[in-house]
């Protein structure tokens, strides 16, 4: 390939990468954690006051009592078949909120019948922290209103797509030579480049999927609007066919009980494990029923599974557009885009793989920034070994920014997760506290990185991240040692403590390595901390040289 083209694409790769890299780090780190959103929410949520779900055979009674007493539920409600922290009771419905738009998470009320036959209605009390991590993932770390955050996220996704293509073009001429090379030598830039290329090329399909799907997640509304405006207009309005209606119109007659509907569904689709039933009743379309559930043999459209539409009167399957295994080719293709992004196929094996690929992605973006710094740092000339090296202003800005944002994100997420077990004791409404804690830690880390410079900042912040992440199992341990001070679930929630403990250990190791690294760094390295040995107290004057 022509060297000028490679050189040009190197520029493209550098600048698209440097603009999007830190946003992508946050998106990937938070996204990796989001693969375990449900166990995390379970870990973070106190046991609900609901107890066992109302038996399925008593559910018709529950439904009629709720519909009589709570008009909000008449528009639609859910029947839960598998309880979770988010859906702790047999039935729930949305509180009406005229100010909410499509993208706001609706507030739910939950209901059970007690053993004595009383109606027990309450909010779930589930911890909002898992949703916060998911929001940080979807909005690349910016907790701004949806309509501002989405264009930013979409732009980052497009830059990321261009960075992937240009990165491959840059690597192509030396791909065969470089692919399996991992040169652990004196040349640190070479080492980082080999690491970056290795990670990038072997997880390229994953990254291409993420870039393309995220762009659509960000921009689907404007694209649909543009299609409406320009494509399906005038001579082309005929392109839009009528949506096919169920032949018999809206179902009429006595609805089957939830238990009977589940049995009817099982007859027709034995491989599908239903998790929740969504009942709707609108004046235009009449009563309808959609059932969310899993079929591990297929890819599913959402992290919460696939969906099937049933006739609530007969229990016959009506709508299969999103039903794993019953979709037509086009429907399955669309579903594959979603499931490839969410990792909602292949069960726990894929979930863990995506977790690791997500962390690997975060490492890819971090190493990309390091390469930028290594390329731009001023090197000590052999001819003038005594000259003073003052790194460029861009390096003195990007170094602390990289260290502060990445480690600030890790510490912030860890501290706010750990706080889930302490906040309910301290405040009555933990909601916004989690966001405030995340940003307080994140901004403190960023400020610290700029105050201390890249090298010293990295050591301090790696230690802080290790400590912050260790707070997660420490919170559980505190509860175990002081009975009555909180809760510990003795099931899948333990994985959260285990993974956090391993993460804390890894970060502590990195902190130790980095501390040793900066004490031996040559003067022209970005890790150089000044002529003073590390052990000596460092005043503000020596910091400038980092």
């Amino acid at each position, binding site marked *: 390939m022509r060297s000028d083209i490679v050189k040009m694409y190197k520029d493209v790769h550098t600048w698209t990468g440097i603009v999007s890299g830190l946003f992508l780090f946050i998106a990937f780190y938070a996204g990796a954690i989001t693969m375990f959103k449900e166990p995390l929410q379970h870990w973070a949520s106190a046991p609900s006051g609901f107890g066992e779900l109302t038996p399925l055979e008593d559910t018709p009674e529950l439904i009629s009592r709720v519909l009589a007493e709570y008009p909000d539920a008449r528009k639609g409600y859910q029947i839960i078949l598998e309880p979770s922290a988010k859906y702790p009771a047999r039935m729930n419905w949305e509180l009406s909120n005229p100010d909410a738009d499509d993208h706001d998470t609706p507030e739910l009320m939950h209901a059970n019948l007690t053993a004595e036959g009383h109606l027990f209605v309450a909010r779930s009390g589930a911890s909002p922290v898992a949703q916060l991590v998911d929001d940080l993932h979807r909005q690349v770390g910016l907790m701004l209103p949806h309509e501002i955050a989405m264009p930013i996220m979409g732009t980052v996704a497009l830059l990321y*797509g261009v960075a992937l293509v240009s990165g491959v073009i840059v690597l192509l001429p030396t791909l065969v030579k470089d692919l399996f090379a991992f040169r652990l030598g004196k040349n640190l830039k070479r080492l980082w480049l080999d690491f970056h290329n290795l990670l990038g090329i072997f997880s390229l399909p994953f990254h291409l999927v993420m870039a*393309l799907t995220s762009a659509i997640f960000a921009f689907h509304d404007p694209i649909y609007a543009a299609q409406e405006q320009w494509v399906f207009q005038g001579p082309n309005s*005929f392109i839009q066919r009528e949506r096919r209606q169920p032949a018999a119109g809206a179902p009429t007659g006595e609805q089957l009980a939830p238990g009977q509907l589940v049995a009817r569904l099982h007859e027709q689709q034995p491989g599908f494990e239903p998790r929740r039933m969504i009942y709707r009743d609108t004046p235009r379309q009449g009563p309808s029923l959609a059932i969310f559930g899993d079929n591990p043999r297929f890819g599913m459209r959402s992290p919460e599974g696939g969906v099937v539409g049933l006739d609530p009167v007969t229990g016959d399957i009506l709508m299969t557009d999103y039903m794993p295994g019953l979709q037509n080719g086009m429907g399955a293709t669309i579903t594959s885009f979603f499931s490839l992004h969410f990792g909602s196929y292949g069960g726990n094996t894929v979930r863990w793989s995506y977790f690791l690929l997500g962390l690997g992605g975060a490492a890819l973006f971090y190493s990309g920034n390091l390469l930028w710094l290594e390329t731009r740092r001023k090197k000590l000339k052999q001819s003038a070994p005594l000259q003073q090296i003052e790194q460029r202003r861009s390096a003195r800005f990007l170094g602390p920014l990289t260290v502060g944002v990445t480690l600030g994100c890790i510490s912030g997420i860890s501290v706010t997760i750990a706080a889930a077990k302490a906040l309910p004791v301290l405040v009555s409404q933990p909601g916004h506290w989690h966001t405030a804690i995340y940003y307080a830690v994140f901004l403190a880390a960023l400020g610290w990185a700029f105050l201390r410079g890249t090298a010293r900042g990295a050591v301090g912040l790696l230690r802080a991240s290790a400590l912050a992440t260790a707070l997660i199992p420490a919170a559980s341990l505190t509860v175990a040692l002081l009975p009555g001070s909180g809760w510990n679930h003795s099931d899948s929630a333990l994985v959260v403590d285990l993974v956090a403990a391993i993460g804390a250990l890894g970060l502590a190791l990195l902190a130790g390595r980095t501390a040793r690294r900066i004490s031996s760094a040559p003067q022209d390295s970005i890790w150089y901390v000044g002529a003073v040995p590390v052990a000596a107290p460092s005043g503000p004057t020596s910091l400038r040289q980092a």
Partner: protein
Amino acid sequence: MKPFRYSSRGWLGKASAGLIAGFLLALSCGGLLARFGLGGVAPFGVEHQFTMWLVAPLLVTVLSTCFLFRSVRQAWLWLGTANLLTWGLLLAI
């Protein structure tokens, strides 16, 4: 004459052409598929969704390759012509 060599000069102009003309091109390709390939699509049905999804790979492809035009003018010229063709096919026939 010196042989032409690529450089990142004019990157903003090329990228703008790639973004704007690339987006419109992707949109019209979705329309062409809907009209001539799928024989119409139901609003928000899976076929309609597919034509919307098409925008991402097409746009990223154009955005990544637009730097291979030799100048900003050429980028607009080629991508503009491609748009005229696709939109013409979509709206005039």
